[in-house]
């Protein structure tokens, strides 16, 4: 990619980040954007471990949470005028704490990758989460601790009381963090992380200690997870044990995986999708975690390279100018597939609800009437059958869209 093209991608990214609130300015939208900002930095930092370095961590929330706790403590110190500095730098405090925690824990956990690393990360995660509930003075027990971000010196008259002001602050941090995490992948340490992921043994025979390479990625990852924790502290002004336990660790794994581990942009996509599901879907259904779980399983089974991988799959067809050939087959398979999943969702929701009538996309469904169930099951079976029938056509269309044209075949 040319220099100018690369630069314009980054400028575009910055513009999108800064312009989003111009288009969606409701309180809900801003709150979702803030969550996205936090999630993007967190899941990108996770991908430094799993995607770039081949280290499967079940305890990444430790660095996020510790960073966040220290950030809230810093807010408290500012509030009581023990220290005096702008809250602009709170994420940096989170980052330093994340880094220090990663230096300590990484010094022994990065000795091996694979199962051993995964098990240690799980153990450390449980240990820190359990410990945090014991030391209530520092961690605030189950209620957590809270601060107030409006103290300290003003920044050009802004006191950051508004969520929108925090969004702009977060957007700048997201941009800086994304740039640095990307640049890391372009350095010797970042490239050797890929090499160690691929083949730790050979890396040692070209002069690199696999353990040291992992350790450096691990520390960098802890730093950025801590920055995300600091952003969390600024946004919510409180933090609890849940932010460093296995739930948060699991969520960041889902984000990075669903987005796509193999691509730098993957975790960003995953963070956006999961934040949207988390904040929008949860308004409509108590079962949104179930749908998230199903989506994760389907992604692992059918899109092992995540959403980013799914998009990139179309590169060949796009380069050959055949992308539009796929539009119709996608619709023919997509509509019944969508109908099938929606009918399944309706049935799951009907099973779960205790009401006699249940509103689904504006339709009133009588949950105890046999007819509702018969119709639903019929639609589901028919839609499933239609999807199955249309798949061979989609496959053919896919193959012809990706086929090498006769003119290129002679070469090589």
């Amino acid at each position, binding site marked *: 990619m040319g220099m100018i093209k690369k630069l314009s991608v980054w400028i575009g990214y910055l513009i999108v980040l800064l312009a989003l609130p111009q288009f969606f300015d409701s309180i809900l939208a801003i709150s979702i954007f803030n969550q996205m900002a936090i999630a993007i930095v967190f899941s990108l930092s996770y991908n430094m471990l799993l995607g770039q370095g081949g280290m499967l961590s079940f305890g990444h929330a430790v660095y996020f949470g510790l960073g966040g706790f220290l950030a809230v403590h810093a807010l408290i110190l500012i509030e009581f005028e023990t220290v005096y500095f702008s809250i602009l730098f709170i994420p940096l405090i989170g980052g330093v704490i994340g880094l220090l925690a990663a230096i300590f824990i990484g010094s022994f956990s990065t000795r091996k990758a694979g199962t051993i690393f995964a098990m240690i990360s799980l153990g450390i995660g449980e240990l820190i989460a359990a410990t945090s509930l014991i030391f209530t003075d520092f961690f605030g027990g189950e209620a957590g601790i809270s601060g107030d971000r409006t103290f300290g010196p003003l920044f050009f008259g802004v006191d950051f009381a508004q969520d929108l002001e925090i969004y702009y602050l977060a957007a700048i941090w997201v941009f800086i963090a994304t740039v640095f995490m990307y640049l890391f992948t372009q350095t*010797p340490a970042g490239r050797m992380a890929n090499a160690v992921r691929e083949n730790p*043994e*050979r890396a040692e025979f070209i002069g690199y200690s696999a353990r040291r390479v992992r350790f450096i990625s691990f520390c960098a990852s802890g730093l950025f997870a801590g920055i995300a924790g600091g952003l969390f502290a600024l946004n919510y002004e409180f933090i609890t044990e849940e932010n460093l336990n296995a739930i948060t660790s699991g969520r960041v794994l889902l984000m990075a995986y669903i987005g796509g581990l193999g691509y730098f942009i993957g975790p960003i996509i995953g963070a956006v999708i999961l934040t949207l599901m988390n904040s929008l879907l949860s308004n409509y259904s108590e079962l949104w975690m179930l749908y998230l779980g199903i989506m994760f399983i389907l992604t692992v089974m059918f899109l092992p390279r995540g959403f980013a991988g799914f998009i990139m799959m179309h590169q060949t067809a796009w380069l050959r100018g055949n992308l539009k050939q796929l539009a119709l087959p996608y619709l023919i398979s997509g509509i019944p597939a969508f109908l099938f999943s929606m009918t399944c969702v309706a049935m799951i929701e009907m099973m779960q609800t205790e009401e006699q009538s249940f509103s689904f996309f504006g339709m009133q469904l009588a949950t105890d009437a046999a007819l509702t169930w018969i119709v639903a099951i019929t639609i589901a079976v028919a839609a499933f059958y239609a999807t199955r029938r249309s798949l061979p056509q989609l496959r053919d269309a896919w193959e012809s869209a990706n086929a090498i044209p006769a003119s290129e075949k002679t070469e090589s």
Partner: protein
Amino acid sequence: MSILTLKDVRKNFGVSEIIRGVSLDIKEGEKHAIIGPNGAGKSTLFHLISGRYNVTAGTINFNGAEIQNKPPYEIARLGLARSFQVTNIFPRLNVFENVRCALLWSNGYGYSFWHLLGKQTELNEKTMHVLEQIGLKDKALFPSGELAYAQQRALELGIAIASGAELVMLDEPVAGMSHSEAENAVELIRRITEGKTLIMVEHDMSIVFDVADRISVLVYGEIIATDTPENIRANPKVQEAYLGEVVTSA
């Protein structure tokens, strides 16, 4: 001047002795082949020298430094590079990245996270030069895991020699290749190890006698002879243990 000296090196796995007291002196600049029947311990010997295994007893001296039981990366940094019998590359990195990774340490980058690889003109030129030497220049951006077998073997060699190590150890570099591929590979080996010390394990006797200045014969963990190709051919002990059947059948 010897570059590598092994003194009474032994290796046991549990109760079985695989290497039973090997002493060997490799002179600077020589092309040395290690031959022997299957299971003689040739690959094990390579692993002991390059640091993959620890020795049970004995010393290995490389350029004045004792290297036995040192981790592979420390030995590699001293200027000892090796290839593997089974292709051992970074499969999901492209060909260019594979070779560039192998150049990083010797070019002083260490664990740097403050250099941008794209801006290291000299490093990237050196990488392209290695790719040119191993004939993979036009495959630079190709995922290395999808290369044809002979090309992967060439890349394997490229990774081994990229660092410019003084001592290059090749473990069956032409195993599994067709006759013409092997010929090309031998030509390549000759070219890229020029002025360097080479230790090679190889089964193909015509290649061994063609390339090597001296040959050591390893039988059941012991070196029974080290000599010039002519003398090795004439050595009755060698013929009895190993070579005789090969010579007559060839």
